[in-house]
Each structure stands twice: as structure tokens, then as C-alpha cells.
């Protein structure tokens, strides 16, 4: 397997196991490579749109659906708490883990709390809505805003 793929899996599996972003050093140790090579792999993963980095070029802001920083979208799966990047990604975490979970978020306009159970077959009946402001062709122009 390429270092790029090993790096991607190491990042995602760390998130899945801990709910937290791994450091560059942790990923390098996990794949048995040096920090410089792993940093280069990060750049290639960014180009593939599976990773978004902080301005320092090594702290993980997003490994969708996981967020490396706290957000308003919190997902609980098997007792572990995860931050999601957006509403879509809050559903993406139980989907990626293939486990039931619970999504805690809010209505962006009223502030009303969303507390939604997700079974392995999907969300329980719920009439809330999801709204995406940025058109699909522009999502990665500024993925944090999106």
C-alpha cells in the first residue's frame, strides 16, 4: 500500500478510535515513516479532498466526516464523542463507523436543539431539514465555510 493510503487510513482509524485528531508525529509512528514524508502525503490527500489542514500545514482541521476541532455538531457512538464538520458529516460518522449513534446539533436560526437517534438503518423519523448554502461546484473553494 502507498504511504499516502497508509497515512489516510492511520488518520481515519485514529479518529474512529479516539474521536480526536492525531498529531503528525502520531501518524508517522503509526505508518512507520518519517514526519517529512507524512507531511508530503498530507498535501496529496488535501488535493484528493479527503483532508483539510490548518495553516501550519500539519494540524488536521477536517478528515471528513470527522472534525479535528470542536463544532456545534456532536455525535456519540458507543460512548465516544466525535465532532462533525457539518450536518451532513454528523450523519457520516455513524455511516463510516457502521454503528448506531446519536446526533446533537441545533437549528441554525432558532437555536432549538436537535437530538436525533441514528440506527444502523438511518435516522429515526424526523421532519427537520438540511440546507446547504454553497453549490457543489464550490464546496472545496473554502471547505471550512462550506
Amino acid at each position, binding site marked *: 500500500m502507498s504511504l499516502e493510503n497508509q497515512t489516510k487510513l492511520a488518520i481515519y482509524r485514529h479518529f474512529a478510535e479516539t474521536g480526536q485528531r492525531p498529531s503528525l508525529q502520531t501518524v508517522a509512528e503509526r505508518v512507520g515513516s518519517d514526519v517529512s514524508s507524512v507531511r508530503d502525503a498530507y498535501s496529496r490527500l488535501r488535493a484528493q479532498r479527503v483532508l483539510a489542514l490548518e495553516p501550519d500545514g500539519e494540524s488536521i482541521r477536517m478528515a471528513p466526516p470527522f472534525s479535528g476541532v470542536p463544532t456545534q455538531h456532536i455525535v456519540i457512538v458507543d460512548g465516544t464523542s466525535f465532532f462533525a464538520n*457539518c450536518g451532513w*458529516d454528523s450523519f457520516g460518522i455513524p455511516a463510516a463507523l457502521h454503528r448506531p449513534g446519536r446526533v446533537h446539533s*441545533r437549528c*441554525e436560526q432558532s437555536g432549538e436543539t436537535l437530538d436525533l437517534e441514528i440506527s444502523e438503518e438511518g435516522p429515526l423519523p424526523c421532519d*427537520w431539514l*438540511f440546507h446547504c448554502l454553497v453549490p457543489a*461546484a464550490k464546496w472545496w473553494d473554502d471547505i471550512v465555510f462550506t
Partner: protein
Amino acid sequence: MLFFRSEERVREWCGQHDYPMRPLVTMDQLWALATTWYSTRLQEDSRRPQPDEMRSIFAGLGLRDGFWDPQSDRFG
């Protein structure tokens, strides 16, 4: 990419921020998108859907508006 309690709350939010109102997505449609995008994300051979696949996924869920076209230049 946010949650709203109702269409009326979306309309209020867009109006207050002078944002255009976009197509709305139900929770069931969102689950379908989430599973399509992410169910293989922790696997070795996972990859993000390519533009043609994205169009097909969105169309399959009834999201046919150009807004969902990953290569559209209709939207600023």
C-alpha cells in the same frame, strides 16, 4: 451545511443574512448521502465520489437541480 427545524426557519435565516435559499434536503435524503459518501471511508480502497458519480448519486435522490452539479458554473 446546517440543520433547520423547518422551511420557515431556513427562509428567515437566508433573509437575515441575505443568502439565497437553496434546495432543501430531508433527513432520509441526508442519510442516503452520508452512507454513499462515507460508508467505505475507513477502508483501504475508499475514495471520494468522482463528478459523474456525484451527479448520479444526487439525481438518484431527486436532487437534480444544477446546484448539485459538481462542475456547474451556473452558481457564483
